[in-house]
């Protein structure tokens, strides 16, 4: 319980300190808060590993009166991934978002916004209350939109406003479903809802909440706000926005369909979700192929990579939940969530280094960067291996598990999507890789300290290690899983 509370309160207190303290004390306070929150997230994972899911009724009030929190394997694993990305971003932001580099405005705002985002991501991973999750989603949205606008450029303002427009529309759709749910059942607790008497309005409620969460997760065709918002932000902020933010709404979606209302998971609905995911894989990949700037390629790739996760719905949802392949499909989707987070953050941090070193992220300006800054080239290559789904990376494990489930369940069409998505990823990542590893180098870039170059490399190595050491995370993710009846293949 202590670890759970620490993971929520430490980043909040650090954010308050970063607002209130005088200028020279802000960054040290934020870094201290980041270090402590990382420790709390790791500690929570250890506690969950040793003793099972951690539950807590806030204020001592049980649902339906109060709000319950529960850290299961899934929530704790996402918490650890978030902590690793946040820590790496904080270390990189010491260089990029210092007041002396980014100006006093961005140098002031970045740190509390990052910490508020961290606190609310952690809250989203453990909350069991649908209205509390609405408040959490709004806090994530406002922090994320502010992180886009922080760059101050005209295109960032327009991108931030479009992002806010979509995100608020998503919030209201979600809120409409929450209102119907409480009106019908007098509770908002996921566990109590799982045991509810079904009402006729439930399908509409679930549909509204799902639609809202899809907009926030930027699933095709609701993805149009994402690429420009993610690429207009400063690189450390882009890393947070692309690697982490969509994962909160995605997790709530999983909790709704697998835990709160699995009885409503009709085959047609599951098929629709996965089809939109498949379209996202293909369309996002094609658009990534057409971009000339590194940050836009990486941002469009997020649209595609998030699409894979939606294949989990027909492979492990509804009646399929009791099948032998369900555990593999479910775990594969979470592996994709985790490894995409680590790899995507690494890529954006590399892009940030290139922007500082060359003043540009156009592929034509990045030729030969791997020679000038070898660690960044290595980091980008490793992260690409994960996104392409090549062995032995975490992305490979994810796609292997999903593909096995697709064949075992006879739904081989999803296997085709996985294969086509991998080819597309190889194609759209080939262009930046070819530029970065080109033999010639154009202009001598600005020197970048090795300690800074090592940050994205660390994340990229972790995204590959997730595949090499997959058995521990695999078991960890089963802790508190909603449908543990069937073991993996």
């Amino acid at each position, binding site marked *: 319980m202590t670890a759970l509370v620490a993971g929520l309160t430490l980043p909040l207190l650090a954010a308050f300190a970063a607002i209130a303290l005088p200028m020279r004390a802000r960054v040290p306070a934020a870094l201290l808060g980041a270090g402590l929150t990382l420790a709390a997230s790791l500690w929570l994972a250890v506690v969950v590993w040793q003793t099972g899911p951690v539950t807590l009724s806030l204020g001592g009030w049980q649902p339906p009166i109060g709000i319950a929190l529960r850290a299961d394997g899934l929530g704790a694993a996402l918490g650890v991934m978030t902590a690793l990305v946040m820590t790496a971003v904080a270390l990189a932001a010491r260089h990029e978002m210092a007041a002396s580099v980014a100006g006093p405005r961005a140098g002031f705002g970045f740190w509390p916004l990052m910490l508020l985002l961290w606190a609310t991501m952690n809250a989203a991973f453990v909350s069991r209350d649908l209205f509390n999750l609405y*408040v959490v989603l709004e806090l994530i*949205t406002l922090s994320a939109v502010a992180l886009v606008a922080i760059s101050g450029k005209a295109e960032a*303002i*327009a991108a931030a*406003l479009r992002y*806010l427009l979509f995100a*608020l529309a998503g919030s209201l759709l979600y809120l409409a479903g929450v*209102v119907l749910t*409480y009106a019908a059942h007098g509770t908002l607790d996921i566990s109590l809802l799982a045991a509810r008497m079904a009402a006729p309005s439930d399908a509409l409620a679930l549909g509204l909440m799902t639609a809202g969460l899809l907009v926030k997760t930027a699933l095709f065709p609701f993805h149009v706000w994402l690429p420009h918002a993610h690429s207009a932000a400063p690189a450390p902020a882009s890393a947070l926005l692309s690697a982490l933010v969509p994962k909160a709404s995605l997790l709530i979606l999983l909790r709704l369909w697998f835990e709160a209302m699995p009885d409503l998971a009709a085959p047609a609905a599951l098929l629709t979700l996965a089809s939109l995911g498949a379209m996202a894989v293909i369309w996002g990949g094609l658009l990534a192929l057409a971009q000339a700037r590194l940050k836009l390629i990486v941002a469009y790739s997020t649209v595609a990579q998030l699409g894979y996760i939606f294949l989990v719905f027909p492979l492990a949802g509804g009646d399929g939940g009791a099948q032998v392949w369900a555990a593999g499909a479910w775990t594969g989707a979470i592996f994709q969530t985790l490894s995409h987070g680590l790899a995507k953050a690494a890529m954006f941090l590399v892009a940030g280094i290139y922007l500082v070193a060359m003043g540009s992220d156009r592929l034509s300006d990045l030729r030969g960067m791997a020679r000038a800054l070898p660690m960044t080239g290595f980091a980008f290559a490793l992260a690409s291996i994960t996104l392409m789904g090549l062995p032995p990376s975490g992305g490979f494990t994810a796609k292997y598990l999903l593909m096995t489930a697709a064949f075992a369940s006879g739904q081989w069409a999803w296997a085709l999507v996985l294969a086509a998505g991998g080819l597309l990823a190889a194609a759209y990542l080939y262009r930046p890789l070819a530029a970065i590893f080109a033999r010639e180098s154009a202009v001598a870039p600005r020197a970048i300290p090795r300690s800074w170059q090592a940050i994205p490399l660390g994340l990229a190595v972790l995204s590959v290690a997730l595949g090499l050491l997959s058995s521990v995370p695999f078991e960890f993710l089963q802790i508190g899983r909603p449908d543990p009846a069937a073991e993996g293949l």
Partner: protein
Amino acid sequence: MSLTLFALTGAALVGLGVYGLLARPHMLRRIIAFNLIGSGLFLFFGAAAARGTGLDPIPQALIITGIVVALSASALAVGLVVALARSSGTAYLPDEEGRL
């Protein structure tokens, strides 16, 4: 009778807001439309909370929270609209109909 009236008014307000959001691209209109949708949902919620014996306080608390959340989002949105107008001279998003 009155509760049904209030609930249906709430539903109609949501519809009005949705129409405003989709058909009125000026960003201040859209911010107003968001507030219409939110308040319509809350009215529906309030009517639903009054159906039992007495007025359920939990929805009332949730609605007050929701009103504050809506204000926060509106404040940031209004600021962004002013910043957009300052940098581009229009309160319409790029590539949306309605450029003057």
